[in-house]
């Protein structure tokens, strides 16, 4: 075990993948000479050369689609879309080609493509650069969606994704890149089927993913001080969702709060909430609560952005409310 950053963990995953499989290559805007917008690929161009670390023009649709084509052609591409915000420009390729080619071709094709992108708000980047769209991706049949929230997932999910026969989308929370955690450097791919209980508790289940995990854990610590033991679940895999882990916890606690940095309406939190009701209705002591972002294009000013995003205090308040509520 060594202490490393989320950024370094991604870097280590990329490097290991490039070292082990000659068909792996990384392609995206500024992954090479610049070293990656978040420095995740710094030094890789020098080590692996321009054929395998490919700087692209600003053409999200074309290079994402080219990743699909290269995957069809026997390569193992990792496409980096600099941030989720720009992925809208490639969404047609994702929804209509990457996700559908296998089924639409009657099972003839597979698209072994890994797509990475940075996601999330909280850095005062304003309305066009602060999106959380993982929930949209989780809606699309034919792909898998991962959200690493720890350094070991940041590395291990990438390696696991590269073993999947179908497209996998990895959402790296930009605000986590500089954060530190423990990494077993010998560890390779991690499980990409289950959610993880990050903190055990008996009173309430707090469910989240990605950048909100540290907030949920901090909220749980605060609540523990007040005698409320929250079980914190990190979804990890946003598609397909691991219902079993969620339901097991909620059947025990009888209460759940879902934390999601997306706008509330139509968020992934809504899906999780609906599934919990569907699967644990009679054990629910109160309606599942959601702590999401305010429904506003993200403002630049820090106090406004803070007000728009889920905060630790909001999570604590939601749990406290749940603990007293007897239903709406």
């Amino acid at each position, binding site marked *: 075990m060594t202490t490393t950053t989320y950024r370094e963990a991604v870097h280590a995953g990329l490097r290991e993948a490039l070292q082990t499989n000659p068909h792996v290559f990384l392609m995206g805007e500024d992954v090479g000479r610049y070293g990656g917008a978040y420095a995740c690929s710094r030094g890789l161009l020098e080590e692996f050369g321009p054929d395998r670390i490919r700087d692209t023009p600003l053409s999200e649709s074309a290079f994402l*689609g*080219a990743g699909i*084509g290269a995957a*069809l052609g026997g390569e193992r591409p990792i496409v980096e879309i600099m941030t989720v915000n720009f992925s809208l420009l490639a969404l*047609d390729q994702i929804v209509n080609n990457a996700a559908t080619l296998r089924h639409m*071709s009657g*099972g*003839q094709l597979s698209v072994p493509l890994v797509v990475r992108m940075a996601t999330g708000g909280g850095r005062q980047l304003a309305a066009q650069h602060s999106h959380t769209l993982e929930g949209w991706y989780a809606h699309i049949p034919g792909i898998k969606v991962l959200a690493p929230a720890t350094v070991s997932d940041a590395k291990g999910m990438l390696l696991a994704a590269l073993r999947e026969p179908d497209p996998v989308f990895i959402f790296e929370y930009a605000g986590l890149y500089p954060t530190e955690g423990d990494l077993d450097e010998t560890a390779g791919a991690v499980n990409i089927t289950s959610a993880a209980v990050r903190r055990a508790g008996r009173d309430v289940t707090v469910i989240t993913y990605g950048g909100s995990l540290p907030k949920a854990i901090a909220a749980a610590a605060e609540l523990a001080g007040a005698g409320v033991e929250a079980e914190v679940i990190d979804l990890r895999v946003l598609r397909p969702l691991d219902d079993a882990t969620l339901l097991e916890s909620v059947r025990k606690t009888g209460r759940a709060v879902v934390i999601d940095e997306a706008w509330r309406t139509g968020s992934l939190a809504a899906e999780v909430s609906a599934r919990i009701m569907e699967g644990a209705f009679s054990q629910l002591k109160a309606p599942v609560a959601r702590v999401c972002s305010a429904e506003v294009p993200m403002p630049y000013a820090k106090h406004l952005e803070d007000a728009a995003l889920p905060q630790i205090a909001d999570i604590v308040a939601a749990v406290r409310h749940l603990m007293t509520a007897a239903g709406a």
Partner: protein
Amino acid sequence: MPALERARGLALLQKMLLIRRFEEKAAELYSAGNIRGFLHLYIGEEAVAVGALEALSPDDAIVATYREHGHALARGIPAGAIMAEMYGKANGCSRGHGGSMHIFDVSRRFYGGYAIVGGGMPIAVGLALADQLQHRPRVTACFFGDGAVAEGEFHESLNLAALWKLPVLFLCENNRYAMGTALERHQSQTDLRRKAESYLIGAEQVDGMDVLAVAAATRRAVEAVRTGSGPRFVEFLTYRFRAHSMYDPDLYRSKDEVAQWKRRDPITTFTERLREHDLLSDAELAELERSVEAAIVDAVAEAEGGAWEPVADLLKDVHSPVTL
């Protein structure tokens, strides 16, 4: 006409005729309700697919559009597998999942019909990138219409292919309309070669109603691409004789314009040329028609006789089986 071997002439004619009769039958079956969804006929444009695909080798890849029966047949995908696909049967080439717009046959490197205009172009670029990375001397041929030229993906794809010198052959089927919108109303520059040249891609324009001209131009372009010097662009001037799809009332062009183009029917003109040059006898023509008819009958029978995929298998192909 340069020296043309009899066998080659017959083969080209046979392919064009097969496409024509196949689609005439498909239109009939559409009206009868055996084929549903969208059906885009290629009638009038057969020389393009037949000539272009003659110039490609089996190892080369094809990416096509929703108007791709012609390309699929010219590539040698059995008519029965295509017809069964249009019936939605499990013996269809895409197991009935795709229908007319999504014909796939990976064994023949036919990477599909794409129904989002321009959507196949980046895929073609990627296939070519894989070949370049693996040092395979293959070409990826990417068909698209004049309408696709307006899409952002056209621009991004051409730039990427040219920048990375990828072995892509961009084949533009300029039939002068994008649905009901005439070329002059969707492109400021209607000489589409100029577009390709703006990426430093060598481009040629050719009469798409002349199967030999199509084949020759495509061959030149394929050879250039195979040298590793990057993509080439060929524009085929052609015309669709039928409406855009079976839903189209065809209000946007004059009967006269259509009639003018029909005089240049690629099949009748090529037939005449072959006869003029004594490369086709009456008997041969009759035999050709007969064998094509027979192939269509067989194709329909194969489609009719096909099984339906069990509903229980609905989700089976959403993901690939995991083989660790």
